[in-house]
């Protein structure tokens, strides 16, 4: 049975003018690490707030651990852990006080579920008498995760946990999530970073309140319709402008220090030659494996057409 079940969920703001969540459906299996991937403003936080019973949906249905988010909201609150995108623990309480406060209001103790948080808590334990407001960003995030876990939730909701966190801490954080998953906790995580998508078991790509695709990251990549190439030259700005005017190039976008393109006839050599004739120097190109971001852009383009 799925732990989180969402059906045609709709949420609008400002009297229906702003559609934040536009009829979304998905299901998360028990013990799954599921990612909601999408840019800022895609509606990820609204979905999380509805599933954690902080926000009422306009229409649609959703259940968390089999409980309805509208009617059984009180029951749900004992079973879920929620870590909002913004650090929201008591800054004037110490690390330990925050943790024991959240343990007690869930009618449990730190000792009872210590095994769940042990690996994470051990890293912030040296600072347990420091006030939460004085912790560094990465430590705040670990504390928040501990507080969300201390009552042994069945489902863990993590809203953009890695936003604003350095690369090393991000990597660590995903390791922690894997360990939690091994304990059987269902985890729903949202992130705007496409490179984190492959760390999830399944992902839903979201854009403007609608789901573009739901699948495993591998399958989403497999479904990329065309062959993808990356090209570069000595003048990248001129290159992208030239590529856009060429009829055989079906899509082009800048991707770090390369441009990613798809071709109508997949004749890369012909294209490279043409570019050299146009006066580009050091022209280089090769076929590449698409990433989730490439898929996202392709799907977004289709959806807009």
């Amino acid at each position: 049975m799925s732990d989180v079940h969402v059906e045609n969920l709709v949420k609008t703001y400002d009297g229906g003018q702003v559609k934040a969540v536009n009829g979304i459906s998905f299901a998360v299996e028990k013990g799954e690490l599921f990612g909601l991937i999408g840019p800022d403003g895609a509606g990820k936080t609204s979905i999380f707030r509805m599933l954690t019973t902080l926000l009422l949906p306009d229409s649609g249905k959703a259940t968390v651990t089999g409980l309805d988010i509208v009617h059984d909201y009180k029951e749900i609150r004992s079973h879920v852990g929620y870590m909002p995108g913004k650090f929201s623990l008591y800054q004037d309480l110490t690390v330990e006080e925050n943790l024991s406060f959240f343990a007690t209001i869930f009618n449990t103790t730190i000792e009872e579920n210590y095994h769940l948080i042990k690996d994470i808590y051990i890293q912030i334990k040296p600072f347990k008498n420091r006030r939460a407001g004085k912790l560094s960003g990465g430590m705040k995030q670990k504390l928040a995760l501990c507080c969300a876990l201390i009552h042994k939730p069945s489902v863990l909701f993590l809203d953009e946990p890695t936003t604003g966190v350095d690369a090393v801490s991000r990597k660590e954080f995903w390791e922690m999530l894997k360990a939690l998953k091994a304990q059987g906790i269902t985890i729903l995580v949202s992130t705007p970073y496409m490179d984190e998508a492959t760390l999830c078991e399944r992902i839903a790509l979201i854009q403007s309140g609608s789901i573009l695709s739901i699948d495993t990251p591998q399958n989403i990549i497999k479904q990329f319709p065309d062959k993808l190439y990356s090209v570069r030259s000595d003048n990248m700005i001129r290159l992208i402008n030239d590529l856009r005017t060429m009829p055989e190039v079906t899509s082009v976008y800048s991707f770090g220090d390369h441009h990613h393109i798809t071709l109508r006839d997949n004749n890369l050599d012909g294209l490279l030659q043409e570019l050299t004739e146009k006066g580009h120097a050091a022209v280089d190109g090769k076929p590449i494996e698409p990433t989730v971001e490439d898929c996202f852009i392709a799907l977004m383009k289709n959806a807009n057409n």
Partner: protein
Amino acid sequence: MRTLRFLLQKEFRQIFRNPTILRMIMVLPIVQLIILPLAADYEIKNVNIAIVDHDHSTSSQKLIGEIGASRYFSITDYGSSFAQSYELFQRDKADLILEIPQNFERTLVREGHENYFLAVNAINGTKAIVGSNYLSRIVNDFNANLRLQLLKQPLSTPPQAIEAAAINWYNPLLNYRLFMVPGILVFLITMVATYMCALNIVKEKEIGTIEQINVTPVKKYHFILGKLIPFWLIGMLIFTLGLFIVARLVYGIVPVGSVLLLYAYLAIYLVAMLGFGLLISTYSNTQQQAMSLAFFFVMIFLLMSGLFTSIDSMPTWARWIALANPVTYFIEVMRMVVLKGSGFADVKLHFFAMLGFAIVFNGWAVMSYKKVSG
């Protein structure tokens, strides 16, 4: 109950860790209670008077001497012409100008009456009216004495047919502080309770901790009680400090009536005002909004409570506002119990009114609090 205990524990920890709040609780009320009543004094002293004496007679000298001897007036200038003194008026150096005409004494003796000219600077209305009244009184006394002396007239026809003698009840010496200190204490309690309660809850909204609490099984009434109880206790503490330390030790005010009755009323009053703070917090998302909203209402509460101006002399519409103002009732109860020694029967209606405020504010706040967090 267990949950509530931990919520309270958390709340007190936060309060005692915040030096600003502690200072606000302890120092502010005491300092204000010592400063405000001393400054907010209705008694008009130091009315500056400029005198233009054209007569220079014994009588005019005597009159001036009597004015100077009065503790209400300080003579700032002896001018030779009205125009000269008028300049002092314009520079706000004088509040009154008394012009004594030439031949003041002679006319007075011969014809039995004489006029003097009094100009009043009415920019400060109260000072002007009270000042000119004081002066007329001095002149009347002077007049009566003069007639006795100069005309050697026996008091067959007394100068005034009926003389009223007034006795001031409850505050025989018309000690202004006796009246102001209890009122200001009420006002301080109001301010601290409303502001601190509203700001504290809105702070949780601002930081986002309220959401974190909302996803826990903590019940709404637990959360609300967890906020109200600490500030209720703080309100009680401030009142005690104000009543026993400042009012008694500094001003020597000992309530004539029952202290227990005061505390009973305070208990309900605090519930009402904390409910009001809660209400403000449900309509604000930032501390700035809460502060502005609370400031707006507390200002109206203060000015329309009868603390400074008598409610009876307000226009009818304003009296209705004063009646809808919880501060009015507590100030009245305070003054009645402290000065007059009123018992429960005398303030029964006040009790009912305050219970009404407590129910309306808290009920409204709880209802709108639920709606917002859905």
